[in-house]
């Protein structure tokens, strides 16, 4: 694990005053990015060493409600600049949800039609949001997961290739570039260069690739750690179990310092904990990110761990995430933390 600089990793108490939202915008696209960084203190209370802090970048504050707004805007911008996206073309891509919402929003703001291929079992809130932006949803076989949506999207394009512009979030370098240009610099600024570990869930891998590259370009000692489900059969929407999935072209595992696997149920319980104890209601990918960030932080004597909370939880209220949550008790969090603390002690 990383050794950190001699200076204290503690950040100034007034860190949040640095974030000034744009007072006026000419387009919703200008409101993407510059999301706040929130220190997570209550769910970790009593477990982290004094010099260790965890921050989460709250991407739900993007206008489309997720981190995917950043990549969607950049892919469309570059598509327009290169002439690949022209008036009359339809924006089409496969997504398990948030990129669909982001593309639908960007398409609406720019006057382009959007069609989204997604597994039929995405949450009903997502379907409705995508439709509310005027985009057309196309459903793929739920048994085939997000890879099924990728395959169906390819088939549709093969039939009339000239009709469509496919941002292709899994293979478009504009996706990580969006994060190299925005998420990375924002985190660097918000932590005043004190970040020691960047922990992010891996779906397309755009967030971790682009942000990780930027952060390492500023300080090569920063550790970049990917988070993936612990089994191909999982319920962590938006995350990929790489060994059993179609590997995105933009994913370069050799750029990661480490990978942490997270169980679906641990991530779900962390969502309940973040809501009830920290006062922030997020989606299951944020739960997974927090579990991994905690596992990293528990191994450290000093450090500033930054993770990404990709979205808020309101899009998942009708989903399996909330099955049985009434039985969850705060003591469960203490038990989980104690378990992870023990395994962290064993590895340090």
């Amino acid at each position, binding site marked *: 694990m990383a050794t950190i600089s001699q200076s204290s990793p503690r950040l100034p108490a007034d860190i949040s005053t640095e974030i000034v939202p744009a007072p006026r915008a000419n387009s919703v696209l200008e409101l993407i990015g510059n999301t706040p960084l929130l220190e997570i203190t209550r769910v970790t209370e009593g477990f982290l060493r004094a010099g260790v802090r965890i921050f989460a970048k709250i991407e739900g504050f993007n206008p489309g409600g997720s981190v995917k707004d950043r990549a969607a805007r950049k892919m469309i911008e570059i598509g327009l600049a290169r002439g690949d996206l022209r008036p009359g073309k339809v924006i089409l891509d496969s997504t*398990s*949800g948030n990129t669909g919402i982001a593309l639908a929003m960007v398409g609406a703001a720019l006057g382009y039609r959007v069609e989204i291929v*997604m*597994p039929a*079992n*995405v*949450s*009903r*809130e*997502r379907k409705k949001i995508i439709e509310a932006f005027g985009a057309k949803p196309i459903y793929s076989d*739920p*048994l*085939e*997961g*997000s*890879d*099924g949506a990728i395959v169906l999207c390819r088939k549709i394009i093969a039939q009339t290739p000239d009709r469509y512009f496919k941002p292709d979030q899994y293979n478009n370098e504009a996706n990580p570039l969006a994060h190299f240009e925005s998420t990375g610099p924002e985190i660097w600024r918000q932590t005043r260069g004190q970040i020691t570990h960047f922990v992010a869930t891996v779906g397309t891998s755009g967030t971790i690739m682009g942000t990780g590259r930027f952060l390492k370009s500023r300080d090569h000692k920063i550790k970049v750690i990917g988070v993936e489900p612990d*089994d*191909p*059969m*999982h*319920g*962590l*929407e938006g995350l990929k*179990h790489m060994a*059993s999935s179609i590997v995105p072209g933009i994913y370069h595992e050799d750029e990661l310092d480490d990978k942490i696997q997270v169980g*679906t*149920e641990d991530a*779900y319980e962390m969502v309940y904990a973040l809501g009830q104890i920290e006062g922030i209601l997020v989606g299951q990918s944020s739960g997974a990110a927090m579990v991994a960030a905690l596992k990293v932080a528990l191994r450290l004597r000093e450090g500033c761990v930054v993770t990404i909370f990709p979205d808020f939880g309101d899009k*998942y209220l*009708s*989903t*399996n*995430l909330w*099955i*049985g949550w009434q039985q969850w008790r705060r003591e469960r969090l203490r038990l989980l933390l104690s378990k992870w603390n023990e395994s962290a002690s064993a590895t340090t």
Partner: protein
Amino acid sequence: MSVKVRVPTPLRRFTAGVDEVAADGDSVKAVLEDLERRHPGMRERLLDEKGDLRRFVNIYLNGDDIRFLSQLDSKVKDGDDISIVPAIAGGH
């Protein structure tokens, strides 16, 4: 009772890549137990240590979510269709 079980991609490593398999049983629970005998490894992915259906797994009996029937005790008939669908993409 023999039923058809549709297997999602992440579980096909237990069925040699096959997307539909046969299994016997008079309830969903019995069918899952038979599936485990024929394709070891599946049970742990579907049920937790208490034997309850994992939260992120949906099982449909002839198109109906068993959580809205009698859960794992839902009765099955000869020729029924069971689909196992991971809630990887959300809702039910």
